[in-house]
């Protein structure tokens, strides 16, 4: 067991004894700092003949005590010093000579806070500009391969359809079923006051055909698939696989981005359709069990009162949402730079952005369709 090192000042001599090792660093450093603060210890002569074990941490402390120039001079002139210890002291002295003090961290001033807001805004602007550019790039890549069936990546496309579409079916169906039931309950509670519980059927069908089917499916895909796209492309980017593709004369847009975007655009309409059906099914069950509206009656009202255009309005939004979600997922993945943390940041950002965009676009579309009377 090493004994704790000691630093004493006798008359004009600094005396270093015992073991100066990492294990005692926290006890030794205060001694060194006290010695430095008291009476210019740098002018004293040094006696280190009583030193026990010494490692690089201890040597660093000695360098801090004496300053690297003095340590170098002392180590070189001391003939009694064991050669390996001299080497260590010299190496550490060399290493510490260039070290400057810590950069001062300033408390944030008002000016800096404003600057941060400004930086955030211009960052956001750049992000949106980049997204618009990336959408354009995706579209041109798509148009470029449309007339060349040999360059369609069918295998990759089908694989992505399976993972984004088929594998997401159960969760989409379950989720919309539950929301459908909840909407029906809400409708039943509110409409009961007017004795108009029969309109629960209209409420559920309108809601799911126009909005909920597509929005719920799109949000689910944003959480489930956009994040997966970002993580996949992000680790490929970090691993230089994207560079390798480009260096072999292959276009990452065509190889990586298009199959994913197209897979999403094909999957989401199907998922939306399933979402609509199972949402309405959930509503229908609630109507049957708690409002005594029979299934036949429900279906008759559905057929008689709900025009086809509501279904089309809902389904028509699906490819647009899918495109936006997939493009954001891919773009965030390609923005990843090197580190594991960066992959995490961009995955978060891709999910937040794609859900935000889905809801924003849906709101704009709702306004537009209302004005158009569709």
């Amino acid at each position: 067991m090493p004994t704790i090192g000691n630093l004493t000042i006798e008359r004009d001599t600094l005396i270093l004894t015992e073991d100066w090792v990492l294990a005692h660093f926290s006890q030794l450093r205060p001694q060194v700092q006290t010695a430095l603060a008291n009476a210019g210890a740098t002018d004293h002569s040094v006696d280190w003949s009583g030193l026990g074990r010494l490692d690089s941490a201890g040597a660093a402390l000695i360098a801090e005590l004496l300053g690297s120039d003095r340590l170098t001079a002392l180590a070189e002139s001391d003939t009694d010093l064991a050669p390996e210890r001299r080497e260590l002291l010299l190496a550490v002295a060399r290493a510490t000579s260039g070290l400057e003090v810590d950069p001062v961290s300033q408390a944030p001033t008002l000016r800096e806070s404003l600057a941060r807001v400004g930086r955030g805004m211009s960052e956001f602007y750049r992000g949106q500009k980049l997204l618009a550019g990336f959408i354009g790039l995706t579209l041109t890549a798509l148009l470029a391969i449309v007339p060349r069936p040999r360059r369609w990546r069918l295998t990759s496309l089908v694989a992505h359809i399976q993972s984004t579409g088929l594998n997401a079916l159960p969760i989409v169906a379950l989720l919309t079923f539950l929301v459908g039931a909840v909407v029906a309950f809400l409708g039943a509670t509110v409409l009961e006051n007017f004795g108009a519980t029969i309109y629960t059927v209209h409420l559920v069908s309108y809601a799911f055909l126009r909005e909920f089917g597509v929005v719920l499916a799109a949000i689910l895909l944003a959480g489930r698939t956009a994040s997966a796209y970002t993580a996949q492309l992000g680790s490929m980017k970090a691993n230089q696989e994207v560079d390798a593709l480009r260096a072999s004369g292959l276009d990452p847009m065509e190889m990586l981005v298009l199959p994913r975007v197209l897979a999403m655009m094909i999957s989401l309409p199907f998922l939306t359709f399933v979402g609509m059906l199972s949402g309405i099914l959930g509503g229908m069950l609630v109507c049957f069990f708690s409002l005594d509206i029979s299934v036949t009656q429900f279906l008759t009202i559905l057929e008689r009162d709900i025009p086809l255009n509501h279904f089309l309005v809902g389904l028509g939004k699906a490819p647009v949402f899918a495109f936006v979600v997939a493009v954001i997922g891919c773009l965030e993945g390609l923005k990843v730079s090197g580190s594991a943390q960066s992959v995490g940041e961009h995955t978060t950002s891709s999910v937040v952005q794609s859900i935000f965009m889905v809801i924003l676009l849906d709101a704009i579309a709702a306004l537009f369709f209302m004005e158009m009377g569709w």
Partner: protein
Amino acid sequence: MAPLIEVRGLVNRFGDHTVHDDLDLDVYPGEILGVVGGSGTGKSVLLRSIIGLRQASGGTIRVFGQDLQELSAQDRSRVEQRFGVLFQTGALFTSLNLQENVALPLIEHTGLSRSDAEHLARMKLALAGLPAQAAWNYPSELSGGMVKRASLARALALDPEVLFLDEPTAGLDPISAAAFDRLLRTLRDALGFSVFLVTHDLDTLYTTCDRVAVLARGKVLVADSLEQVEDNPDPWIQDYFHGPRGRAAADAHQRLGREDY
């Protein structure tokens, strides 16, 4: 002298593929042991087995007289603190800057305050030959050579007793590689640790290693001083040391003399 690391009858299999078959190897205190072998002879697997990252398929490995696999988690961590490991690709923590990378084991294992630990970390980084301002850089901002140096600084953080280096000079320019070799010897002489050095760099082998172990056909063919190993009649060893590159490195070493390094 009792060996620090004692590998006996080590067997490592991946499915049907046997990498190590009854392999024996000793590492003695204070020596630099170079481990060479063709690609795929299991040099890195051997390293991973010794430091306990891989459970061997058979055989025993004793480090400081203890078998890592038999120890409790706490004792094992205590033994592992006496290791310093430099991985092939650096394996720096990408979410921390360099001084935080080096300070992490110091803070976790020695209970130093953050400022003390970072002060020491900057010294270690400088010791490994990095410029002072690099301490605040993140690994993704560094060149390959700088990553190697930072990784060495992290391996040295706790002043280990055994240093495991997996191809430390691969990817360095010749000047940096020579400086690395010199640094390694200086630190070894000063701190007295042992080094387990996996390398393909013949110059490193000639200038730094006290003993060389040659891995082939799942075993250590020979582990001895370089002169002895060179004279081994095994055809692979003859090719390795007396091929054009081996001869060039040997000639260079003879011209410069060991003392100059």
